[in-house]
């Protein structure tokens, strides 16, 4: 269980990264969705005990990050968005090294074999990291977060750089791992959230736009999502006013079928038809709504 109360983070250069965040994260997979610069990584780094909040309190499994960082580090696994591997070491050696840094002693070797199997890297275990592809390196990064069987897993943009099959495998891995554990998944890829999380928070510009279940989130934009067909030359006129989420040109005419979100709840385009909203629609709607408000 993670409890975040009135957390604010202002960096030394004056940039405000988080504004009065209040959040309670239960066990299971919890999504943190938001555009770049929303403050997701800052929040993740606070939870990973790397930086301290400017004000407010953060409690991870009952431990305060400000006063019991060392205890928290024992129970969390963290996959940062940007990471640096040791290119001279092999995948196996690198995991062994990080296992040692996590204080693992007994069973470290078998656990390394296990996570390498989980991320599908066993055949490449003894290759130097510098010779591995980007996707393989990402899988090593995932493996190191799982290595010491943390109670809480914090993953920041974990599927970046993975192909669809790898991404699917990772999602399944997370789902499996989240039984009896807490997984905090930060991403700007909506599909990652919709396919794995039960609940989420949408962050934007350091503030929370929405917190709730994925189902509730998906219905946020209900009655604001429309589909319409309009001539291509008129599209330009609407592009500035609407959030167009899809655009398909007709094969036999000069018309374009568009799907759009209208924040003001009015169909600006004639002959628009209201359609059910998806999580992605709701995400875009929530962010746009915050901007408008």
């Amino acid at each position, binding site marked *: 269980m993670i409890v975040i109360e009135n957390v604010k983070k202002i960096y030394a250069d004056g940039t405000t990264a988080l504004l009065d965040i209040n959040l309670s994260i239960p066990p299971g997979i919890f999504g943190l969705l938001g555009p770049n610069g929303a403050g997701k990584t800052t929040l993740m*780094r606070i939870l*990973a*005990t*790397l*930086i*301290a909040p400017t004000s407010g309190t953060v409690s991870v499994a009952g431990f305060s*990050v*400000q*006063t*019991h*960082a*060392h205890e928290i*580090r*024992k129970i*969390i696994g*963290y*996959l*940062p968005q*940007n*990471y*640096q591997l*040791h290119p*001279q*070491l092999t995948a196996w*050696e690198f995991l*062994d*090294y*990080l296992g*040692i*840094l*996590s*204080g693992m*002693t007994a069973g470290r070797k078998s656990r390394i074999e296990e996570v390498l199997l989980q991320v599908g890297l066993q055949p490449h275990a003894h290759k130097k990291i510098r010779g591995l592809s980007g996707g393989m390196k990402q899988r090593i*990064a995932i493996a*190191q*977060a799982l290595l010491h069987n943390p109670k809480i897993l914090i993953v920041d943009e974990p599927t970046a750089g993975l192909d669809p099959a790898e991404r699917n495998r990772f999602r399944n891995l997370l789902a499996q791992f989240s039984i009896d554990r807490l997984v905090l998944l930060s991403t700007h890829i909506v599909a990652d959230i919709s396919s794995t999380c039960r609940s989420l928070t949408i962050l934007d510009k350091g503030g929370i736009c929405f917190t709730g279940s994925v189902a509730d989130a998906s219905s946020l934009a209900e009655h604001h999502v429309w589909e319409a067909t309009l001539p291509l030359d008129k599209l330009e006129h609407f592009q500035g006013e609407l959030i167009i989420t899809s655009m398909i040109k007709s094969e036999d005419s000069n018309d374009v079928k568009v799907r759009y979100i209208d924040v003001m709840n009015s169909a600006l385009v004639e002959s628009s038809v209201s359609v059910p909203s998806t999580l992605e629609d709701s995400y875009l709607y929530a962010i746009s709504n915050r901007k408008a408000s």
Partner: protein
Amino acid sequence: MRSTLATLLGIVRYQLRDFLRTRYFGVIAALLLALSLVFLELPELAQKYAVMPIFNVAAYLGSLGGILLFFMLVPQWIKEFHPGADMVWSREIPTPVFFFAKIVASLIGVFLAYFPALLLNAAVLCYYFGSFSLRPLGQLIAIILLPQLVLIISLSVLVSLTLQKPLWSYVVLFVLWIGLPSVYEKVPWWNISLRRFFPSPVIGFGPHTELVFWNRLYIYSVSLILLVAAFSFFRLIEPRIKNAPSGLARLLILGSMIALCILSGQSIRNMAAISRVSFPASNNEDLLISSVALEAFTQYIEVDLAQEILWGKSEITFVVHQPITTLHFNLNPGLQVDRVSIPGRTGVSLIDQGVIITPTLNIGELVTLIIHYQGILKPDQNRPNLFQVPDRHQQNATTAYLGQGTFFMAAPGNWSPFSESLLPHRLELVLTGVFPEMVSNADDIRDLPKGKQLVWNHIQPGALVALSSSYRQFLVGDAVVYSPTDYEHLLDIVAPVSASIVGTMETAFLGEAQGKAISIAIVPFNQLPQYSLGDGLIFLPENYFRMYASLSATQNYEAPIIFKRLAAEIMMRAWWCQYRHCFIQPVMIGDYMEGDEDAITPTILSFMALKQSQALLGESFAASEIQARRARVLDNIFFFTPNDVIFPSLGISNALFVRLNDLWNQLGQDAFLRLVISFDQTYADGQLSIDEFEQFVFKQSGVALPPLNSDSN
């Protein structure tokens, strides 16, 4: 505890692996190997005293190799501070364990980088000098190389953590490196070591053992201060939330910093006090690296100048310090050893490079080894020592090494099986055929049917200026003795040139001065070439004279002044010995301990030399030297500055020197000279304490020896 140790070792293992697999590591190790090859001077190694190349390797691998280490250490110490190292910092590893593991990995990494070079050294030294040379190698690595490396590592850690930018770190480290403790050079005030990196007495020269000890202790304590500071900084900048250090941890850090500062302060104070000990110091028994110690060395040489052949016999008496079965020689390849023997023993044979002795020589045994040999004369006047140093590779004769550092060996000369070694205690030279003038202060000269026999019982270096100036005048009081000013031209000529051609110039100048050609007397002291003047005088330039000649040529100091000052000193000693009928003692470079009973006579002579040679040196020189010596005592200054070269650190008591000057000012020249002559008549052996000397001065002159103060001139 056990798991912490396992964690520490695990981190060391991977940090080290990271170290070793970088491309820099191999390049740096290869460059260190190349450096060691350069400093071993392999082509001439066989003809050297083993400890010198080892010393060079240890000293220069530390100082020059230090630059290379920066490129290895800096990236390793800032890599966890790059963005992207979060997966390290989010782990539970305690900071002290992580820091300590990185330090250990750095130490081992540096050692492994040096390992090929050290291995090569060990192999080469074993090949040339036998396995015994591993011991001095180990000693010199521990005493000379290791302290430098520890300082370089601690500096690199602190600077790289502070700056966190490789390029800036390299720039700052390089600037600091320029001032890192060097072996001989002057040390600027901003040098991190603050003091000279004193060479070690283990190699037979250098300052007192205790001075080296305090010097190394100072370097280690400064290194530890840097590391404690680096650790504190490491904690401060580690990119994660820090739990406040416990009171105990803070106390430990503060306590260790204070203790180290006290230790380094104590080291500085002790260094300052001990640095007044004479330099070069006498042998230090505690650091002797010899397995045997020389007791007596008698050399018998019979030379046929017409045939250019010689026969010789060396009798070397030594005390055994370690059980040995083999004495290694570095025999002159131009000579052929006929046989070796130890009276009263069988089983002594020369095999390859060593004298094999069975059964083993035991500790405390006094042994006399006799070597019979013969050879061919090959005078080579192009050499500074006027003798050819045979090229080992042009000869098939056996070359080896004497005693593995037993005697002070250098390149083999031409007449002795191990010439350029320590001068023989007794030399018997028989010259067959016609040899014109041959004196050289021999104790005994006899005409034999086949030529002349010359015997020296106590060989000592003479003095170029002192002896040659016996033709001239030097005023001491009313007595005309010698005149250094007549040799001013000589001093000006020889000063700016290198020692290698000093001999040639001396010969030419003196030949001109005498109005006749000067023949070179072939006397087998390679380091001390002797010149025979036509009327039978022979002289030997002192080692110090040559040393200063070399110094002036390479460092462009005010060499003429140095020579003039030194000449005045030598002449005063010559006058003293003529007056006292004693041997001319070599001039010591360095200071006596203040109050040393041996220091009073040399100090009086040195002071008189300065006063008597003011015409040669100038009034301002004399005043500034007195002022400099006063500052040495009162301000405890012992940095090497240009002044120290201009005012040679002659073996005297600085305090007494200054007090004598004040006394001279009170008494005047005549009364002062009367006092000195009276002093000699009263204390023929010159052994008395400062208190006794003060009483003597007061009794004889009615004036108290003035106390040391900073006011008078």
